[in-house]
């Protein structure tokens, strides 16, 4: 087996003069070439400490205290659900798009690059040392023919390069024009009503889950409130600030965040379960895949991902819902497609579906995260 290059590191003496041992010669904790026991700490574990932020038992016990304090303040309503989001957004608006991601910044960057592409052959010849200035001038005039020749070629190259970048920008712009705007920019959010029966079924399903639960688009159903009442460790996320304020006043732990954003921010394997409901099923396919992948990463082995879905032939009566669904970036999908998607996204999920209710024909798909071995076997 090839040794990981990260394990090839060595630490020098700790307080005493000790012979240096390389890990590729003797390995940690072994005997050094001079026969003296190697007293170095295993390097790999310390690296984990520094690289991924995982920390030891002393720090671990403090983390628990901090988490309890945060929880207490959240439940006390010491800050609104949108508080952290507002703090983050306020700074994001100040970040310059130096990489040229917006059109204005792109052209500003383009112009400065264009200016920088011009090269000056007129080398400065000033000097504080007497006579050196004359020597420099002489060298400049003697080498001018040579530099001119090179400069012409460089200028020709940079001019072509800038032209090429401008042409690429035109092609990108024409591609951008063909892409439909996302639903958010149309100004509509999609929420298909969820029946009470499904509401109860899902609440019962998740009530005894070990570990923390996240309820996505929590204003779409009463699952959050039912689970909180039953004593589950649960919080909800939603992008509707007004609804969140009301839910918080009712003593619920809620946060202003999109489903994807929240799932990406939680530590891998730290959740007991995730309920996906509401607008996610009308997102674009690529976003749905990202949501499912993030959910699969966020739940622990044995944790559940529960999806409430609606079939493509869903009949709706109110005009608002019809328009929202028509203008959504994605479309409703069959249960089989959802199951296939879950399988594609990660083999660590084992999915089954429950039949829907008479009113809305909803379907509840339950996926459970299995261990690596089970995942590869299936």
């Amino acid at each position: 087996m090839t040794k990981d290059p990260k394990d090839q590191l060595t630490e020098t003496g700790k307080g005493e003069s000790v012979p240096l041992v390389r890990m590729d010669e003797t390995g940690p904790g072994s005997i050094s070439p001079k026969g003296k026991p190697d007293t170095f700490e295993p390097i790999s574990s310390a690296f984990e400490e520094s690289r991924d932020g995982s920390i030891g038992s002393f720090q671990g016990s403090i983390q628990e205290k901090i988490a309890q304090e945060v929880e207490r303040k959240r439940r006390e309503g010491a800050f609104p659900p949108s508080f952290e989001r507002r703090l983050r957004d306020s700074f994001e608006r100040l970040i310059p798009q130096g990489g040229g991601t917006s059109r204005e910044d792109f052209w500003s960057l383009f112009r400065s690059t264009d200016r920088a592409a011009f090269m000056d052959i007129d080398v400065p010849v000033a000097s504080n040392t007497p006579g050196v200035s004359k020597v420099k001038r002489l060298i400049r005039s003697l080498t001018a023919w040579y530099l001119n020749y090179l400069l012409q070629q460089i200028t020709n190259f940079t001019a072509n390069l800038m032209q090429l970048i401008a042409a690429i920008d035109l092609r990108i712009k024409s591609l951008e024009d063909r892409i439909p705007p996302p639903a958010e920019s149309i100004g509509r959010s999609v929420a298909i009503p969820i029946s009470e029966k499904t509401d109860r079924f899902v609440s019962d399903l998740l009530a005894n889950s070990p570990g923390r639960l996240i309820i996505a688009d929590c204003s779409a159903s009463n699952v959050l409130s039912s689970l909180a009442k039953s004593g589950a460790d649960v919080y909800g996320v939603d992008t509707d600030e007004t609804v969140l304020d009301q839910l918080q006043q009712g003593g619920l732990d809620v946060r202003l965040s999109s489903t994807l954003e929240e799932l990406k921010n939680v530590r891998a394997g730290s959740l007991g379960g995730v309920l996906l409901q509401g607008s996610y099923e009308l997102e674009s396919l690529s976003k749905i895949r990202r949501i499912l992948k993030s959910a699969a990463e966020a739940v622990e082995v044995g944790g559940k991902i529960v999806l409430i879905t609606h079939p493509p032939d869903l009949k709706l009566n109110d005009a608002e819902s019809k328009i929202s669904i028509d203008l959504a970036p994605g479309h409703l999908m069959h249960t089989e497609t959802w199951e296939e998607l879950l399988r594609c996204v990660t083999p660590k999920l084992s999915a089954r579906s429950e039949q829907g209710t008479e009113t809305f024909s909803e379907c509840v798909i339950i996926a459970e995260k299995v261990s690596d071995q089970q995942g590869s076997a299936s």
Partner: protein
Amino acid sequence: MEIHQFVPSFAPRDAIGQHALALRDLLRELGANSEIFADEIKPGLESQARPYSRFHPMPSKNRWLIYQGSTLSPMAHKLSERREPLIINYHNITPPHLVQSWDFGASVATSIALDQMGKLSTVARGAIAVSRYNARDLVELGFKDPVVASPFIPHQNVSPRLDKDTPRGALWLFVGRIFPNKAQHDLIAALAAYKRIFDKDAKLILIGKRTSERYALALESYAEKLMVSDSVLQSGSVTDDELAGYYHEADLFVTTSEHEGFCFPIVEAMRHRLPILAYASSAIPETVGDGGVLLKDKSPVEFASAAWLLLNDSQLRGDCYAGAEEQLRKYSYQSAKMQNLSALASFIPPLQKEL
């Protein structure tokens, strides 16, 4: 025996400059002819270093070169062409992506600096990193067997602060240049949360040179938007005495830096017996050890809650001080001396008799 060091920018009170000076003195104690050569020598240090352009043009058999790598420098290329054995002492280079949005030029420079360092891996006799995090970076840059040796941290005579709970009017202190990779904006967000939830009289002092004016101005705007501008002070650079005064007056040392190759101010805070609260990025967990509280993410509310606990739980602070004592022993002059000597001896045979 000649062992010379090469420092891109030799500046007073700079961590790398101080390390180079201490190493030079140690090498001279051991009988080596040792000088510091630099691309840029800041005023006041002319007697301690010489311009690189005055370095011997001809190679010598009994000479070793140590490059203190931390930034883009034309010396890197020149040193790679010398015949003498070259040893890299790596202090880390800021990853370009952390500064790209704010300073495109700086991101290009750090990108080239990383490339330079990678090229040195093919010619260097060996490499020494000041932290395990840095050693891992060196491996990624192509160095085969980097060795870890703590940096020399200048000794200071400090009188430790008196420990006390701080339920009101806490003073948070950050020390380091104002630059995007230090992420001082996260500290401002955390302070806003702390003021709202725990202590409306709390304040934050950011000490350090405004290396990125654009970012420094954004910090001011951000503090205004969050309505905490009266509680956030950017002091700029300060003298040694002023800095010691700030360490003494502060109640909490804070950092949310995204990238540190070592982080000297943490050790300074430990010497002043100042509680430490830090985001666990890059080399920070190594430097802090159990001498402070580490956070795995930057949630402003979590940071504020941790600050509140640390400032009002004397038992927790006591545990941290005990951990800090341990770290200070680890980073003592004697320990750094043994580690650096042992590391250098593996690349410079005449030094082996000194072990």
